[in-house]
């Protein structure tokens, strides 16, 4: 008995009970479809998190000044010796794995342009800040390092600031605004970035040369943050260690924890993707259970089939079928149900994923892995749950089976 004959016989048997076969298959179809849909939606959300993180600059390393304790009281961030421009220069000189490093000075300032005014955050940084933060320019251009050196009163503004001060469709490049009463020339407008990780508006910013912000707006010499970017995501951890070593030397501390904090985007991205991984695993697990329930449906119907066809089994044995032949026949039937269900389920799952993606605007990524997984799993389920009923058929005693009423 070859495979072709086995398939022919089982297809014929399944066709005799089309509706029953379909209902049995439905369990597998729903199981496979939901596993694929869940994995696709999960993978999609993971991808969108990853892409939004890489928009932020996935190689980004941020250094904040540390906290100081006084008599057991933690005074919070920024209470130890502040970071200084010398620290930035030391990092620049000694760290080999960095693409760029910039000090950041931050100020909350009132902006005035004509008759409008608006409060926003002003960031002062070097010219390479735009590369480090992966910021694109919508119109105009970024300021240069020589602007930084001579503390030029130029700035770039985010789209929210443009809207508030000049109106939605205005292009204010070349105009001037006053930041805390100091007039600045707008040299560029930043590309829109949307909401950030914590829901903050990333377009509500003004970026100006570091020295200008420090002298004109803050009147201090400290550095509030240091931003750096690693040469690649792979070396970001090593780069972080380099910065840590340099700063420990600079600040003369033995433990990095107290003096400063280093955060990397890859940390954040790992955390977020592990959260979404947990969700995906959970959802796919639930969907997987429905696949197992579908398998039990197959087992149930195979038992019914075996009992119904006892006389046929007896006859086949009487004309020379061995136990093996009978076992294979019923196993093939179960596997045909589960594989067909798997194929239909995979198509349905892809359809549902794409449909959801379009309808709800969810990010959806269909991976070949999820299809192979669901498909392979359903085949295994057919074999596993088909085995026992098939075994029952194969172990029948020919003469008892023949006489079965």
């Amino acid at each position, binding site marked *: 008995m070859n495979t072709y*004959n086995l398939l022919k016989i089982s297809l014929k048997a399944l066709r005799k009970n089309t509706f029953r076969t379909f209902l049995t298959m439905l369990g597998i179809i729903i199981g496979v479809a939901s596993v694929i849909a869940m994995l696709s939606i999960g993978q999609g959300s993971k991808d969108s998190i990853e892409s939004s993180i890489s928009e932020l600059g996935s190689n980004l390393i941020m250094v904040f000044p540390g906290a100081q304790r006084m008599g057991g009281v933690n005074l919070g961030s920024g209470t130890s010796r502040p970071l200084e421009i010398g620290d930035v220069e030391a990092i620049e000189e000694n760290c080999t794995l960095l693409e760029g490093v910039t000090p950041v000075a931050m100020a909350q300032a009132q902006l005035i342009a004509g008759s409008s005014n608006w409060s926003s955050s002003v960031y002062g940084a070097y010219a390479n800040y735009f590369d480090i933060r992966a910021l694109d320019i919508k119109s105009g251009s970024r300021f240069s390092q020589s602007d930084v050196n001579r503390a030029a009163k130029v700035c770039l503004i985010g789209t929210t600031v443009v809207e508030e001060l000049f109106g939605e469709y205005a292009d204010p490049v070349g105009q001037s605004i006053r930041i805390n009463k100091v007039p600045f020339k707008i040299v560029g407008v930043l590309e829109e970035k949307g909401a950030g990780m914590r829901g903050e508006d990333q377009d509500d910013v003004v970026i100006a040369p570091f020295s200008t912000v420090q002298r004109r707006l803050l009147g201090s010499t400290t550095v509030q943050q240091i931003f750096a970017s690693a040469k690649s995501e792979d070396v970001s951890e090593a780069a972080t260690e380099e910065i840590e070593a340099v700063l420990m030397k600079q600040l003369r501390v033995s433990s990095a924890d107290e003096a400063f904090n280093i955060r990397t985007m890859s940390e954040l991205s790992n955390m977020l993707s592990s959260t979404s991984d947990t969700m995906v695993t959970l959802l796919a697990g639930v969907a997987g259970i429905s696949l197992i329930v579908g398998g039990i449906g197959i087992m149930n119907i195979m038992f019914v089939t075996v009992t119904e066809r006892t006389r046929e089994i007896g006859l086949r044995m*009487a004309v020379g079928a061995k136990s093996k032949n009978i076992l294979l026949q019923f196993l093939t039937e179960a596997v045909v149900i589960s594989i067909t269900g798997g194929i239909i389920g995979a198509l349905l799952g892809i359809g549902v994923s794409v449909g959801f993606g379009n309808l709800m605007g969810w990010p959806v990524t269909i991976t070949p892995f999820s299809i192979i997984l669901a498909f392979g799993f359903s085949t295994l389920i057919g074999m596993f749950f088909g085995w026992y009923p098939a075994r029952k058929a194969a172990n029948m005693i020919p003469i008892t089976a023949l006489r079965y009423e």
Partner: protein
Amino acid sequence: MNTVIRASNIIKTFDLGEVKVRALRGVDLEINEGDFVAILGHSGSGKSTFMNIIGCLDVPSSGEVYIDDNNVANYSRDKLATIRNKKIGFVFQSYNLLSRTTALENVELPLLYNPEVSAVERADLSKKALERVGLGDRLSHLTNQLSGGQQQRVAIARALVNEPLVILADEPTGNLDTRTSYEIMGIFQELNEAGKTIVIVTHETDIAKMCKRNIVFKDGKVIKDFMVDKPINAKEELAKMPKQEDVLV
């Protein structure tokens, strides 16, 4: 004459829990090549049990069964399946055909379990077997489209297709009217004349008289074993019967 089946001192006891039923209590029989045997007996006489044992569908509690010089009494399930496949052809009272399957596919069934036969040979042999029982024009009819007599003829073709050593028929005419029964017996007689060994279990004496040898079972033992004086020719008998024009065949 070659001995096809030799049974010696066969005992078969069914253990039904509280009671033990002794279906066969020491049966010795030889069936030779070219025999046409009717096994007679009341129900419970052990005739069907004997038939199942020589058909390798069941094994004796003790004793020896030789089929073509193989002692099958202690054969494994798979070895018995091979013997059934190659040496024995079964015909049952209730035909036991696969429903909603064509006559040809039903006849092909035993060959399907014989790996030595190719698909082309299978179809060819099955077609010839169906022609032999007069159903050459009904190859692709589904079994539920055939009359009782035609269904039994498909079953005979199925029993013939593997060129068995012996054809075993358990009450082959039990479900048929007299006229159709005689038609079926006519086919068996024809096959026997062509050299086939046939064993029929029946309780109808007129059917038994169409066979060459009668064996009577009673209470698990053979009580009579004799050659029929002048076997009735089924075809001649059929010719004598009034035509049943109103019955659709």
